[in-house]
């Protein structure tokens, strides 16, 4: 009634009509504008020699000088390989376990058991990585750790986890998957729960077994969600989860020698250097690689199934 003086089609009309929804959206918009988009301007620091008294805009330009340190060590190839390979394993194994959990939960008929289990399985997600790091240390400690105590009680030799480099790739994957599986399964569970139950009933009447139902109905229906989640995760393929590495491996340079990722290398170099320009350059370098990887994967998804692409 109150909007009749405006044209029935047009921006102002829509603004007035959806004012409540838009108002509810406003905090999100403000959040993104203030904390996500506005700081992007700071990327200009990657090309400047930062001067405290002149500030970001007035500091002198220095070309690509800040990017040089990333390439200087001759480690870039290994860093990129470690970052991509470990993240890819995090992603694939993590997704596999999350989907498996979602399907398991959807198939369990005891509702109370499902809810309690689901709650417990989500708890690790809310534990800080700092705490997880200390749990890992207390589990794997050579003298007093839980694992070694059990090994000794069972008559085996102690196992020196912290000097055994290859095993850490699996330890990282294990804890990353454990921490994210409960929370990550929620998205898939929501999709499974939203599926039309009539399809399952029809399949059951036709004599489909539980495996056939999962294979022929659940997984194909989950496919678009899986692709979308995969694409979204691709954005961070070149961005190592610093928290995992810093808190689980810590300062163990024997392990970081082999499992260094871009983030840990950059933080390691910057912690002693306190150079804002280099930090911005490293961050920009990562963002560009991440953008390219998302772009390529989106193209691939578009080729496979047009509806699965993000843009």
């Amino acid at each position, binding site marked *: 009634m109150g909007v009749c003086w405006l044209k029935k089609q047009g921006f102002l009309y829509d603004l007035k009509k959806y004012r409540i929804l838009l108002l509810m959206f406003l905090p999100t918009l403000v959040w993104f504008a203030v904390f996500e988009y506005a700081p992007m301007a700071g990327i200009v620091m990657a090309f400047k020699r930062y001067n405290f008294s002149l500030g970001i805009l007035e500091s002198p330009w220095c070309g690509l000088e800040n990017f*040089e340190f990333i390439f200087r*060590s001759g480690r870039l190839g290994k860093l990129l390989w470690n970052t991509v390979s470990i993240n890819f394993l995090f992603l694939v194994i993590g997704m596999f376990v999350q989907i498996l959990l979602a399907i398991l939960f959807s198939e369990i008929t005891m509702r109370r058991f499902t809810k309690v289990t689901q709650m417990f399985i989500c708890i690790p997600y809310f534990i800080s990585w700092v705490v997880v790091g200390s749990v890992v240390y207390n589990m794997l400690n050579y003298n007093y750790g839980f694992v070694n105590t059990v090994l000794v009680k069972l008559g085996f030799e102690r196992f020196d986890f912290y000097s055994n480099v290859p095993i850490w790739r699996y330890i990282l994957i294990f804890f990353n998957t454990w921490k994210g599986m409960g929370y990550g399964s929620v998205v898939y569970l929501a999709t499974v729960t939203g599926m039309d139950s009539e399809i399952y009933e029809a399949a059951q009447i036709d004599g489909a077994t539980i495996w056939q139902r999962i294979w022929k109905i659940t997984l194909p229906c989950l496919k678009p969600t899986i692709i979308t989640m995969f694409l979204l995760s691709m954005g961070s393929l070149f961005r190592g989860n610093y928290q995992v590495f810093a808190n689980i491996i810590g300062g163990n340079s024997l392990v970081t020698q082999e499992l260094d990722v871009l983030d840990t290398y950059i933080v390691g170099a910057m912690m002693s250097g306190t150079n804002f320009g*280099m930090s911005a350059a490293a961050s920009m370098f990562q963002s560009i690689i991440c953008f390219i990887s998302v772009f390529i994967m989106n193209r691939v998804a578009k080729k496979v199934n047009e509806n699965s692409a993000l843009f």
Partner: protein
Amino acid sequence: MMRKKIKSIIAIIIVLSTIFALVGCGESKKTGLNDDTVTVVWVMEGDEPTSEQYDKVWKKVNEMLLEDLNVQVELEFLGYTNPDNQKQLRLASGTNDFEMMKMGGSLLAQLAPRFAFAELTDELLQENMPLMMKALEIDPTRIEGGKVDGVQYAIPMMKTNISNSCVAIRGDLREKYGLDVPTCKEDIYEYIKVIVANESGMMGLQKSLALWSFYYQGDVSWGALTGTDNYVLFDATEECNLFMKYTTEEYYNYALLCRELKEAGCWSTDAINDSRSAEDLFESGLTAAYFHNVDTCGMRAQNMPEEWNVEIYRFGDCGDVASSPSASTMVFNPNSEHLESALQVLDLFMFDEEYYNLIQLGFEGENWEDAGEGYYRDLDGNLPETEQYKGNWYATWNLINKDFERRNIENYTGVNEIFNKAQEEGIVHPLTKMIFNSEVIPTEKAVIWSEISRYANALEFGMVADVDTYYKNLINALETAGLDKFMAEVQKQAEEFLKN
């Protein structure tokens, strides 16, 4: 209709709470006692002491300042968690909500060339720090430690501190296993091995950098160049011989020793991930030895049971080298409106004996008494901690002035003797006061530092079985990172510094 209204109310509440949250990010405003009184905010490291006596002392300091300068000092404590990062962000934010800040040499060297601090011109110092200028008439080099590239950015501590690396061991355990009084470093390593082999559940030591200092000090006279995180050293017996610590034969032998001690079980195989402090472990009887400077060893020994009979030793014939006065300095906010007042306050805190004693030791006659010849006697040491004047010595360390400094006459057995001997035999090299400007070659520095963090820990924790190969890899990595270029720049700056 009702549902629509509820939606509107929820939307408005969300929007208002977002706005209020963002408004909260504003700047706080300082208030003085009256319109003329200036408040000087001093940002310091560490935790705020909770004793009543501490508050009483600072109340008195402010009363005196109000009378002398019409100024009040407000203390702001950054805690011990990443104070350097906090300081940088505070400086980068460009706020004017503080006047002065305690600054270590390493950060001073990194931030000064990027103009993070107020420049202290001769004119400013002459006008606002008359007591310091008078002291400088006798020795004008005392403020050299606050200069970067010839520009005065900081007021350093007024003392050349002779570093003396010592070890504290358990006398009761040494006697229990029939070991003689140690006469050299090898005896200490042997003591540690014996204790580890025989005392169940006890480690030799909690591995830290202090073992390296103990290893080389006394055998050579090396000093560390400020601005290089103690990675670049100089030989104090020569005029200008600088080198990277990792390329020395001593470091290679040290890596071998670390491997040997680790193999003997002197520290846990995963000590590299153990964040427990060396002090706590030694005090609670979990380690056989503790390495640090003599005063800290003495302080720890005093807290331990008497029957443990803690013994403190320093070995070697070569004199220790003075550490840089830039290790602890005061810098000033370039955006502060009260720079002059801050300088005047610092002048009194460092060069007026009454203020100096009050801040460092508390009330004379109540907290301490004069014991003559540069010593004091602690009067409240036996009181509960909440009733003592525990000046936060770490926070006020940069105020140390050798003209007024007093040592506790009742320090732990042997501490004052070792300290005095080290001071007598110590070497003060001109390079002690130099601050290296690494901003000239930031890329090389970043990569070299990164390689060191990657290799050195594993070597120093004895985690590497093939020390030879690993050490060679470290040297190769440093060379690839541009070590030659870096050291050439270090040498160039050092020669220029000595020339001037």
